[in-house]
């Protein structure tokens, strides 16, 4: 069965991932987020909690990168998808190195331009999509509907 790693930070990123959950559960899906209450609230017992970080926090980012690497090496996903933010991007970039197919779904919060990680994912992910049609650019990012 296809192993899917679904990584989404706390807040809107996670809420977006939860909208995809019924579809994801056809596969061998493992969720990763940044706050332990969220999987608990959703009744998900085996989620991985990654340290939260952003581009202004080098030490936390390094800790998150190490935790993401451990998760990717242990779970060995066939596919990684992320709705953001930096922790999900790390999972995507690292999983690509072990041959996984990766999809960045830029958060619907980014209506004006792609997020920083979204821009990086144009290079580092197999595919990336925006949720706003006016931000679509030659399929990178592509547009394929929206959760909002």
């Amino acid at each position, binding site marked *: 069965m296809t192993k*899917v790693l679904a990584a989404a930070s706390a807040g809107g990123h996670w809420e977006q991932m939860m909208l*995809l959950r019924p579809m994801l559960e056809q596969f061998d899906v493992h969720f990763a987020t940044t706050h332990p209450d969220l999987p608990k*609230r959703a009744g998900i017992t085996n989620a991985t909690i990654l340290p939260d970080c952003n581009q202004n926090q080098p030490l936390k980012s390094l800790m998150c990168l190490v935790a993401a690497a451990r998760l990717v090496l242990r779970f060995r996903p066939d596919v990684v998808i992320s709705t953001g933010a930096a922790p999900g991007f790390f999972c995507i970039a690292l999983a690509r190195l072990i041959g996984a197919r990766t999809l960045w*779904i830029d958060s619907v919060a*980014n209506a004006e331009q792609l997020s920083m990680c979204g821009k990086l994912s144009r290079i580092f992910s197999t*595919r990336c*999509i925006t949720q706003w049609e006016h931000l679509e650019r030659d*399929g990178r990012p592509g547009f394929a*509907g929206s959760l909002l």
Partner: protein
Amino acid sequence: MILVTVGMQLGFDRLIRAMDEIAPELGMPVIAQTGKGTYQARNIKTLESIAPSEFDKLIRETRLLVAHAGIGTVLTAQKFGKPLVLFPRRASFGEHRNDHQLATVGQLDGRPGIGVAYEEADLRAAIAKGLESEMGGVASDLAERRSRLTAAVERFIRSGEI
């Protein structure tokens, strides 16, 4: 009851202060999740953070949600079918690192069940309108956008195509 939320992290005193001033005219209790704000409200009940399960309970009882323009909040309001007034955080007031919430409300303004107050002065009217509006589940065009994205992600997992 009216539920106010600025999310679980950053404070947003401008919204809490404005709601505190309007609250006596509303004729119903106002409960606010304030994040790490410093403003001391007098007319509304404030909590720095509300546990997710408790928040779900409150939102079921509320008639209207007044909130920062966070996507988590918008999706939660839609999930529970509650009308929503959005008041965007502004970078110029130090309320967020950039003005992406302004871009969000620009796109969402006019959607069913969503009102926007760009300034404090717009809140009264937006709340009055929100209290009158009826939300009936997920609009059909939204359901279509969602199922299109869900199908694309499923296709990607199975075949690598979007």
